[in-house]
């Protein structure tokens, strides 16, 4: 983080300055977004479909122009720069590997059209193919490759141009689960070895969390939170982010009183809860709050937990077994469902709790999140 902050002091490689994009006058796809991306960052734009992340990426690439605001690359205003003149390259969701050219011709295309000397091209193409582990595949046609290999061609084709920024539009969505996981690690390795800024668009939170240094979570055209993966997960700024990144249990709460150093809340299903102040920026001045806990921070016990832990007694409704973890769904006194994630540590094939059983569910007060909106 310090390393990144150190670099951030310099000029950002991409500066998005209050950019708005409206389609057809009525649909606002991107709404006054401002972002700065530092050189060498692995940056993710994360959000559900229709949140404007792809439109933002396409504006950086130059395929859409902002209705309002500016995009600067390396300090230069890109407003009147066409896509083929921008120092960035893109890996398309469909890969867009030209089917009528061999792999080598595909990779060479971007060099050829910009007048790189013929003598230099062959070497750079081979180097780029080696980088994505496709050495020796140059003579093949795209229809002789698997989806994963085609994607590597698209990567090589973009990286061979040595762009300042590489844009990746949902690069892993067309791959199967195993390959996707391998490719996540591969992309991180690539980014570290070439040192180019990567901006990835994804709707898959695990993809963003595992790969990016920083993530902008978007919803309906706006950035809802901009933070590191761990920060997003442990300190979400609002309900949307808390719910979108990982799973979360929410309890509606009302502030009963504030006194020296602690906050007394009336929580639905839990009763009176006393929390130390400073649990989150959200608490200040608001009467209605949400109290949130991640499922893996919860503990299940048959005995009443120690008084310093927060908790309630509930009834087991359902147990879902996933292999390394299980999810237990409880109902609390207010009747709403709470998910608890437990690690299956031992080699037991018996479920830890049975449906219908009454158990105590508890967590440490410092694991509580307070969310305003």
């Amino acid at each position, binding site marked *: 983080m310090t390393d990144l902050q150190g670099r951030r002091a310099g000029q950002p490689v991409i500066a998005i300055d209050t950019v708005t994009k409206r389609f057809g006058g009525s649909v606002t796809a991107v709404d006054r977004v401002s972002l700065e991306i530092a050189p060498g960052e692995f940056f993710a734009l994360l959000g559900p479909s229709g949140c404007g992340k792809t439109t933002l990426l396409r504006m950086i690439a130059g395929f859409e122009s902002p209705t309002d605001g500016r995009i600067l690359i390396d300090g230069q205003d890109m407003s009147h720069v066409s896509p*083929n003149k921008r120092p960035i390259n893109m890996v398309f*969701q469909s890969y867009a590997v*030209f089917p009528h050219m061999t792999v080598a011709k595909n990779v060479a295309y971007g060099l050829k059209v910009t007048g790189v000397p013929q003598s230099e091209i062959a070497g750079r193409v081979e180097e780029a193919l080696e980088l994505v582990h496709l050495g020796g595949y140059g003579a093949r046609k795209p229809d002789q490759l698997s989806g994963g290999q085609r994607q590597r061609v698209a990567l090589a084709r*973009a990286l061979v141009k040595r762009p300042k920024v590489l844009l990746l539009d949902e690069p892993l969505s067309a791959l199967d689960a195993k390959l996707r996981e391998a490719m996540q690690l591969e992309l991180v390795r690539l980014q570290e070895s070439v040192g180019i800024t990567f901006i990835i668009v994804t709707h898959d939170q695990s993809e963003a969390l595992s790969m990016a240094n920083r993530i902008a979570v978007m919803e309906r055209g706006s950035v809802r939170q901009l933070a590191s993966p761990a920060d997003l997960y442990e300190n979400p700024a609002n309900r949307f982010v808390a719910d979108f990144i990982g799973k979360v249990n929410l309890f509606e709460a009302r502030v009963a009183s504030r006194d020296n150093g602690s906050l007394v809340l009336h929580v639905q299903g839990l009763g009176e809860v006393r929390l130390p102040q400073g649990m989150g920026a959200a608490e200040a001045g608001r009467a209605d709050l949400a109290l949130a806990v991640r499922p893996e921070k919860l503990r299940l016990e048959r005995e009443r937990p120690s008084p310093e832990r927060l908790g309630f007694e509930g009834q087991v409704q359902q147990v879902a077994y996933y292999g390394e973890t299980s999810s237990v769904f409880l109902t609390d006194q207010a009747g709403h469902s709470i998910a608890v994630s437990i690690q299956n540590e031992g080699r037991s094939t018996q479920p830890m709790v049975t449906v219908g059983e009454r158990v105590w569910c508890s967590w440490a007060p410092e694991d509580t999140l307070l969310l305003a909106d």
Partner: protein
Amino acid sequence: MESWRRNPLVFAAIALPPAFWLVLFFLVPLGIVWLYSFGENIDLVTIETTWTLENYRRAGEPEIFTLFVRSLWLAGVATLVCLVVGFPIALVITTSSPKWKSWLLLLIILPFWTNLLIRTYALLNILGSRGRINEALGWLWEMGDGFLTIIGLGQLNLLGERFTPLTLLGNNFGVIFGLVYVALPFTVLPLYAALERMDRSYIEASLDLGAGQLRTFFSVIIPLASSGIVSAIIITFIPTLGSFLTPDLLGRGQVDMIANVIERQFKSANDWPFGAALSFILLYATFFALAARSLLAGRRGREDAEAF
């Protein structure tokens, strides 16, 4: 389809009427003409099939052979013009907004709603020596001449003694113009279909990699639209090659194509066997072009299959 095959009665009930129609009104007449092509005129109204090859031999005579070559040349040039004009049109339609797209497509299809004869007479009105184009040119000449007189250069006759209308009919230009006019929608529609199917991200990828618009057009759009281009060529070339009305009216009897000669054999020359032979040579030429295309397509398909 599958269920029809499993239920032969239903299949027969649906397939029989069109099959009957095709046999009675297409295959049988075609067979009769085929027999004529091996026949001889006994008297004015009787043709006897003697299995002579004389009619086919006559088709190889220089006069007729030249006509075939000219027909191929005219149809070829017209097809080329159609492609050069039609491709940008198709590209514009593909890239326009959905609202505009349907209007533009309507504009392309609109000529089909008017009879060919009427459209051709309209062309006569436009291209004739006293037609609209010459009228406009004549007006421009008057204006230019008047202007020269005003500035004192009237005596030099810089624009000629008097306006001479351009000859736009009765020559290759008129016929090719007419052929292009008739065939253009047939060219645009398959091109439009091919471009519409094309994944837009190929074009964006090309731009993204630094290629300009022109480079993208020649290196990406045209190769990816190649199957549509081949379809457009065939669907334009074949009917154009057999054109009758356009060379008849716009050629003014000066620019005959093969169909005009065939017509004459069946009418004024009253030589049906020779006309039949010429018809079949045209038909074989068409078959040959189609067979060559499917062979090519087949080989490409096999190569792709072998690659795996």
